[in-house]
């Protein structure tokens, strides 16, 4: 059932990007966070932009935030502009970006804004109570928590390939090490493998430190036609490939528990559109809601063979300074995972990396970055983008 991949009719570029430091923002409202991410994004445009005049439309990503774009219109002063709210579980921020890119590529608009925000911590009970079982309208007989959904994949991967709990822990260690270098990270603290293994078991084989934190956050980017990009900056970042794919909703109807099939398909679409291969990627921001997700994604994104995700982390390949740094930002694990904002924030990190603006966590000589963001329990949907600092 694989779909034919066409290239974007108009090339698309990112010319501005900003976010707020992720964390526990009890002092800020949803609107405060939106406004700060927006201001940071507008201020990042090297040659300046007049938003009310030049931004023609907005894609707004949130899972639990206000339903319509009216909040964004009010907060940003972009009142009257078309604002489309996108919701695609934890892949919301990526799908908002994807739809904005497609509208520009189609020629409908020249300059648009993507803005995403999630306030997760004001809710009593946190994630489990807020999102509840992953299948809210189904009885508990086959409902499950989010950590459990991903743990099912971890268990099967261990069974088929001999992957060890320590391999998952190593991914947490790496992402905390990277995240400690990132001033935008929620958790800026290094940990050791023993810390992960000593932390309480949430859903075996996942320990507490295999799980991303519950985070408030917001991020925004400006997307425009590539041929207009130099009007805004001498260092635009180009969108070379985009892919999106789905799984059956119910976990037992999926074909595999060692492969996240939507990731394989979304990556195929993105690589094909960009006309590149996995070996061409210099670094990646990969969805690590739970550490096994990142391990399995090394394989599904084509960074290593199926079953070799454990070896990939063991050999240090995805570390900063390694052959293929993964999650220089610290990932969802350390940077944080404000669900609807996560994908947009990954694009912001890639924008910074490709412009050599990532400070202590800079990937040396980065020219091509891959962004990967999944949504739903174990995943229901996966989104992949490929960006570069040179147009090809």
């Amino acid at each position: 059932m694989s779909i034919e991949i066409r290239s974007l009719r108009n090339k698309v570029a990112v010319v501005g990007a900003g976010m707020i430091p992720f964390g526990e923002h009890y002092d800020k409202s949803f609107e405060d966070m939106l406004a700060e991410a927006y201001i940071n994004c507008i201020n990042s445009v090297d040659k300046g932009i007049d938003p009310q005049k030049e931004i023609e439309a907005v894609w707004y990503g949130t899972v639990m935030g206000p339903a319509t774009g009216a909040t964004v219109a009010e907060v940003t002063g972009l009142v009257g502009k078309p604002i489309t709210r996108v919701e695609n579980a934890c892949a919301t921020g990526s799908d908002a970006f994807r739809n904005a890119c497609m509208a520009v590529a189609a020629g409908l608009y020249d300059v648009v804004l993507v803005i995403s925000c999630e306030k997760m911590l004001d809710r009593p009970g946190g994630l489990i109570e807020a999102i509840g079982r992953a299948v809210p309208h189904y009885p508990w007989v086959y409902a499950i928590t989010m950590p459990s959904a991903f743990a099912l994949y971890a268990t099967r991967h261990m069974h088929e390939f001999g992957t060890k709990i320590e391999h998952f822990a190593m991914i947490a260690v790496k992402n905390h090490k990277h995240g400690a270098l990132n001033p935008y990270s929620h958790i800026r603290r290094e940990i050791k493998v023993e810390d992960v293994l000593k932390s309480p078991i949430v859903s075996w084989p996942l320990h507490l430190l295999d799980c991303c934190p519950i985070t408030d956050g917001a991020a925004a980017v400006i997307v425009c036609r590539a041929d207009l990009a130099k009007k805004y900056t001498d260092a635009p970042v180009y969108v070379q490939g985009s892919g999106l794919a789905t799984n059956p909703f119910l976990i037992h109807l999926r074909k595999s528990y060692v492969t996240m099939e939507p990731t394989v398909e979304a990556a195929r679409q993105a690589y094909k559109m960009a006309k590149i291969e996995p070996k061409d990627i210099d670094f990646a921001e990969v969805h690590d809601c739970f550490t096994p997700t990142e391990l399995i994604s090394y394989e599904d994104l084509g960074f290593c063979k199926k079953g070799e995700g454990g070896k990939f982390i063991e050999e240090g390949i995805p570390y900063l300074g390694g052959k293929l740094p993964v999650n220089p930002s610290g990932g969802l694990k350390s940077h944080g995972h404000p669900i609807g904002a996560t994908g947009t924030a990954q694009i912001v990190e890639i924008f910074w990396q490709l412009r050599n603006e990532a400070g202590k966590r800079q990937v040396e000589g980065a020219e091509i970055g891959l962004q990967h963001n999944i949504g739903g329990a174990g995943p229901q949907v996966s989104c992949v983008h490929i960006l570069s600092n040179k147009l090809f």
Partner: protein
Amino acid sequence: MATAFPDFWRLSPSIYRLEASKCKKCGKIMFPTRKICIECGSTDLEKVEVARKGKIVTYTISYIMPRGAETPAIYAVVEMEDGARLTGYLTECDPKEVKVDMPVEIVFRRISEEEGRVEYGYKFRPIR
């Protein structure tokens, strides 16, 4: 968030009688029942009851559950003898004994209680 009464009523043939849909074109069995085959897209489906015995494909042992649910809760994907797959919780099983490929059978059990309403349904029990 509690499950609404109509949700129980609509799902009761699957939850209580284990009704599934079998595709007459490609043979795929899908639980719960549906109108379109997930595999080949055919709408020519018949109702079947899934086999009562199967093997664990993968599992997890959850120590953090929403209020009111028992812990640890062992949750598994199970492939039944007829090829149908189901997800659900295990019962009468020590977390130390659960493993991939372990044979299990379906039993009818109390599942949970929400807002004073008890929910019943199927669970998997190790075959001894």
